[in-house]
């Protein structure tokens, strides 16, 4: 019998004499790990991005600054509190031929540790794990990259949102 059941049984025994027993076993409050993401990326593409002027196509690959996003993982229970960060696209006016990728370019700082995510991960509209760690981490740098741009795309603003989700692990 686990502690929860034992406690419930004792309460049932105690309250039997009163004729009415209400036993509610509430879970202990869960401490939520927080994630903070700072920064956004806007890339302007024009004729200067042709590889060789008229007759040529676009460069095709565009890379953000190495710290276009700064991520912080906070409110952990300590350096043994494991978590992972998943990432995905939430499209507004994105085009499927544009391939957006992300990678971690720094480990940041903090009492915990961080692993994975240093190679580009192509984002989809479903969550994928970018990196994981334990304990609080601050100033984790993320770089974004777009490939697949070409003149087949019509002039437009292609907009998507990169969504980071931190998941507290047992």
């Amino acid at each position, binding site marked *: 019998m686990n502690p*929860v059941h034992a406690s*419930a049984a004792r309460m*049932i025994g105690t309250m039997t004499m009163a*004729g*009415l*027993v*209400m*036993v*509610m*076993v*509430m879970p202990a409050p*869960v*401490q*939520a*790990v*927080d*994630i*903070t993401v*700072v920064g*956004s*990326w*806007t*890339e*302007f*593409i*024009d*004729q200067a991005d*042709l590889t060789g*002027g*008229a*007759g*040529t*196509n*676009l460069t095709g690959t*565009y890379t953000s600054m190495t710290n*276009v996003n700064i991520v912080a993982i906070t409110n952990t229970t300590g350096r043994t509190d494991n978590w992972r960060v998943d990432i995905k696209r*939430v499209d507004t006016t994105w085009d499927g031929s*544009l391939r*957006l990728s992300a990678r971690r370019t720094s480990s940041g700082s903090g009492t915990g540790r961080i692993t994975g995510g240093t190679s580009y991960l192509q984002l989809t509209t479903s969550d994928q794990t970018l990196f994981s760690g334990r304990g609080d981490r601050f100033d984790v740098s993320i770089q*974004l990259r777009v490939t697949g*741009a070409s*003149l*087949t*795309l*019509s*002039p*437009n*603003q*292609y*907009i*998507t*949102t*990169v*969504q*980071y*989700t*931190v*998941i*507290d692990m*047992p």
Partner: protein
Amino acid sequence: MNRVIRPILIVLVLSSFPAGLFAAEIGTSAVTFNLQQISEISVTGSPTLTISSAVAGQQPQPVTDATSRYAISTNGTNTRITASIDREMPVHTSLEIRLAAPGSGTSLGYVTLSPTPADVVTGISHVASGSRTVTYRFSATTAAEVFSASYTVTFTLTD
């Protein structure tokens, strides 16, 4: 001895998080890929066309030159190339131009050049094409005056 049985109502609510469910928090970052209209065209070549003889009893034969080339890049839809010259040709002479289609669109064949821009290729969409042939054709009748002049041909890629 009589036993009194008391009704007992037990409401047991056990609430706990299943093992597979973890707390999650979300952060977001916007990405905007701002693709501008791109319409680039370039032309190479400075041909010389000379009519110096004719068969007796006939009009002079036109002369052609196909050494010039053009290149184009556009992400527009249904764009066109127009061509014009900086001034009128002398009477009884004609300068025409023909551009090969850049893999997208339709060449209108030989088009007479004048100071008014005229369509030479239409219906061009989303293309990057280099080294397409430009052909000039110069014609004159026996009524034309002898002359020698240079003309500037202007190509425009437009919606």
